[in-house]
C-alpha cells in the first residue's frame, strides 16, 4: 500500500509522569524494495509533502532494507511451514516479515495524554532520482501504541 491511515482509536489513559513510548508495527514485509515509513500521529492529512516536524504530528521513521523481490522459484521466500516442528533444526529458510518500532518523544507522549483518540498514519517513501517518492511497498499486519511506565 502507498499510505496507511488507521481509524481513530480510543486513547488509553497515560500515567502521570510517563515520558516515553513506542509505536510498534508487526509483520512488516521486507521482501520488496527498500523504503522508509514516515509515521505521523493524529495527522490525518499527512503525505509525502508533510514536514517531518513535531507540530505536524511526525513521530519518527522506520526503514526497511528490502530484498527487492524473490528471485527463486515459487515458494522460495515464503515463510517456513515446518511439517514436523518438533524435529525442525534448521534456521528459517524463507523471508518472514519483521517488526519495526518508532520511539515516541516526551512531547509526543504529552500530546497523546490530552487526546481522546489516536490515529496513526504511515507514509511509505522510496528513493528516486527526484528525491523520496511514494512507495507501494508498505505492508504490515498490525500496530500497537505503548506508553511506558514512568
Amino acid at each position, binding site marked *: 500500500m502507498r499510505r496507511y491511515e488507521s481509524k481513530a482509536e480510543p486513547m488509553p489513559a497515560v500515567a502521570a509522569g510517563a515520558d516515553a513510548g513506542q509505536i510498534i508495527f508487526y509483520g512488516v514485509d521486507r521482501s520488496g524494495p*527498500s523504503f*522508509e515509513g514516515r509515521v505521523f500521529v493524529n495527522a490525518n492529512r499527512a503525505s509525502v509533502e508533510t514536514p517531518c516536524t513535531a507540530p505536524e504530528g511526525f513521530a519518527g521513521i522506520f*526503514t526497511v*532494507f528490502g530484498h527487492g523481490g524473490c*528471485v*527463486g522459484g515459487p515458494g522460495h521466500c515464503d515463510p517456513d511451514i515446518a511439517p514436523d516442528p518438533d524435529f525442525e533444526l534448521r*534456521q528459517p529458510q524463507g523471508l518472514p516479515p519483521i517488526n519495526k518500532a518508532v520511539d515516541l518523544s516526551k512531547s509526543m507522549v504529552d500530546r497523546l495524554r490530552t487526546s481522546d483518540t489516536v490515529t496513526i498514519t504511515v507514509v511509505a*517513501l522510496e*528513493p528516486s532520482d527526484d528525491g523520496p517518492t511514494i512507495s507501494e511497498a508498505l505492508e504490515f499486519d498490525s500496530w500497537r501504541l505503548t506508553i511506558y511506565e514512568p
Partner: protein
Amino acid sequence: MSPQPRSAGRPSAIKWRRSVESLSDEQLERLRTAFRGVMQLKDDRGYWYHAGIHGLPLPDHCRVAHGTDLFLPWHRAYLYRFERALQDLGDRGVTLPWWDWTSPGSQNGGGTIPDAYARKRPGRKPNPLYSADVDPIALNQWSHPLNRPAPPFEYKAQTERFPGQASRLPTADQVRLILQIDDFREFSTAVEEIHGWVHVWVGGQRGHMGNVPLAAFDPIFWAHHTMIDRIWRLWQRRHPQSVLPAGLHTEALRPFEFTVGQVLDVGPLGYDYASATTKVGV
C-alpha cells in the same frame, strides 16, 4: 568441532581497526592493494565469493541475519572472514576500517561519502574502494527471477551509489542513546534500524547498497558494517553484565564455521578497535 584460533587472545597478535578518516596515506594504500588483490581472485578466496555470501548468487545467507537476534554476530563473523581473506594475500597487518557516518565530515552538507571511497582515480589509479565489479551470476539472477516479472530496472555491472535520495545518516546523538540501552535484543534492533538508514541513504534507488541481495558488492559495505561492529564492541564494553537471549550462544552462524558464542569476544578473533594506537620499538 569448531576450529579454535591458534593465537587466541595473545595481545601481541591483536590487529587494530581504525577510522577510515584517520588512515595514513600508507595505510590507505595497503587497504587498496588488498582490495585490488582480492578482487582479482575469482575463486572462493575472492571478492565475488565473499560479497555473494550476503545475498546473490543464491543462497542468500543473510536472511537469517536481518530482523533476527543474529544480526550483530552474523555480520561480525562475516567481517572476520572477509578481513582474513584480505590478509591472506600477504599483508597480515591490513584491517577493515570503519566509516563513522556520525562524524562532522560525514554529516557535512546532509551527508558525505568518505574521500577514501568517493574518489574515482586517486593518484590516477582506479580506486578499488570507489566501485567494484558485480558477479555476473548475481546480476543474472537479479535480472531473471524465476518467480515474478523482471525487475523494473537492472543494476549496473559495477557498483554505483546515489547518496541522499532518501533516508538519512544517523547522528552521534542517536548512537549515544542507543549505547545506553541495557538489553541486548533492544540494542540489536536499534542498531539494525540505523544500519538500514545508511544502506538506503548510500544506495538510493538504483545503488547496490540499497538492496540486500547486492549490497555487499559495494566496497563501502565493509566500512559501514565495520562501524556497526564497532558500535556493538563499544556497547559490550559499557554493558558487560548484559546477557544474551537464552540459547543464542549456541546458534550456528550459517554458512560460517562459528557459533554466536565464538564471536562475542573480539580478542580470539584477533582484532579490536582503536581511537588511537602507536607502537614503539626499543
